[in-house]
């Protein structure tokens, strides 16, 4: 993946049931990302998204005339458009690619994910979903609660251990003015929250929001002209083999495959990582990523989280420093990317990780969908 950098990032206003139009959110984040990258719409010759505001509508609104377009759910999960953009600039198919993700309160219903501009295509890795829906298992909370239950059975993982992840994320959200939930929570709050799909309670689930995040992906040759280049060192993805319930190594998930692929393509090691922004649509997904990425051994994510000292802003591995999707809001795999860039640039304000972080890992996805990315400054 060397050859690509993230030259700019932008975030719209974020809120719950704001009534803001998707296109307005897309444009707000995209204009911010282009300004941050120091490029104008006429410099941008590529545009990609995962399937919310249609590309043509966004391009016309922003004044972009793309010669390269990309995006959809794919091998790298929600990050597929970003990886596609990296590939495009690395091979010279585009110079600057705008990638955006817009959400309007997605999730939490008995249907497949519906994004702002219409239904997302069901990726091949999700083809087993119709027989799982037959079993009244309508929600990812159902599918992933079974992974967590198995993890608890195999390793003795407890809800108290997991609660530290939710508490840590809320502490970080308190330092993020864009986060939607900023009031502190206690372990008692976590444990007494109403059950959704046991062992997941309400505070194991992320928070639907309205908002958009955009990044500008540029060729590495633009690094000198960029005020704050963040380099894409390595990426990993998965074909999702085994689907939701057939992996021989269950409760492992596609994150295991993606992490292996990422580490296979870099000289950096888990010990080199200064901070981690790991997907948390549900708490257990972050735990699965911690294990998959080798920050702890298989089954050890519970003890790793306990007490939250390791994962705090001043800990050995600051985790989900913006508050996570659990507390900041479900920006569907893109806030992790935005935050990792902000931290590597040293621009995260009151929640800035100390010691000039140099390497960050970003991940998204759960079940048969996974993508991860190693970023350096």
């Amino acid at each position, binding site marked *: 993946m060397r050859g690509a950098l993230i030259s700019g990032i932008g975030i719209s206003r974020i809120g719950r049931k704001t009534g803001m139009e998707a296109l307005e959110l897309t444009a707000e984040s995209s204009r911010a990302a282009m300004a941050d990258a120091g490029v104008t719409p006429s410099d941008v010759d590529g545009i990609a998204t995962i399937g919310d505001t249609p590309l043509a509508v966004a391009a016309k609104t922003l004044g972009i005339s793309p010669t390269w377009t990309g995006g959809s759910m794919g091998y790298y999960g929600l990050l597929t458009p970003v990886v596609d953009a990296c590939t495009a600039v690395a091979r010279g198919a585009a110079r600057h690619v705008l990638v955006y993700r817009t959400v309007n309160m997605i999730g939490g*219903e008995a249907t497949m994910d519906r994004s702002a501009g219409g239904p997302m295509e069901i990726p091949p890795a999700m083809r087993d979903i*119709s027989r799982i829906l*037959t079993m009244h298992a309508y*929600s990812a909370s*159902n599918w992933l609660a079974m992974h967590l239950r*198995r993890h608890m059975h195999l390793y003795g993982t407890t809800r108290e251990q997991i609660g530290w992840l939710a508490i840590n994320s809320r502490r970080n959200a308190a330092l993020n003015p864009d986060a939607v939930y900023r009031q502190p929570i206690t372990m008692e709050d976590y444990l007494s929250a109403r059950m959704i*799909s046991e062992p*997941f309670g309400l505070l194991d689930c992320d928070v639907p929001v309205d908002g958009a995040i955009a990044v500008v992906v540029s060729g590495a040759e633009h690094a000198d002209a960029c005020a704050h280049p963040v380099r894409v060192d390595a990426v990993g993805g998965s074909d999702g083999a085994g689907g939701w319930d057939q992996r021989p190594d269950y409760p492992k998930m596609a994150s295991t495959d993606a992490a292996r692929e990422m580490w296979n393509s870099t000289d950096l090691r888990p010990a080199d990582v200064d901070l981690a922004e790991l997907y948390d649509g549900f708490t257990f997904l972050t735990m699965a990523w911690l294990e998959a990425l080798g920050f702890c051994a298989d089954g050890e994510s519970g003890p790793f989280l306990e007490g939250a000292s390791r994962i705090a802003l001043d800990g050995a591995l600051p985790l989900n420093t913006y508050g996570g999707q659990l507390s900041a809001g479900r920006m569907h795999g893109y806030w992790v990317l935005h935050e990792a860039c902000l931290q590597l640039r040293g621009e995260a304000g009151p929640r800035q990780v100390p010691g000039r972080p140099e390497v960050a890992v970003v991940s998204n996805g759960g079940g048969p969908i996974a993508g991860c990315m190693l970023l350096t400054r």
Partner: protein
Amino acid sequence: MTAVAPRVTPPLDDGNREFWTSGAAGELRLPRCATCDRWIFPPSLHCPGCGGVAAYAPLSGRGRVFTYTVNYHRFHPEVPVPYVIAIVELAEQDGLRFTTDIVHCPVDDVTIGLPVRVVFEQQGDVFVPLFEPAPDGQT
């Protein structure tokens, strides 16, 4: 008898039809490879292990709870909560498992390892394989 809540049923094809309809005969059936004897799930008439040809054969309908969740949130307005969704591993082969529901018992009675046996719930032409605790505690 209370009304059975509707289920969305999967599209049937030559590979999976017998799995979803053999409950009409009171049997759980899956394809088994004629070459390597392996049971195949998801159902397919082509063995993913050795490439051999598979044909449907009856299973005992016995197994154990591999993992489960108690669903408390009303995701579907016509499905009463709480209820238990589980992955059951069938007795015939390690790793032969699929997502299903555990029925006919209090939700708090379900544990990993619980011996279960198949029961069927008819939804039109489809007989959905669900499981209940095995009365003899045996698999």
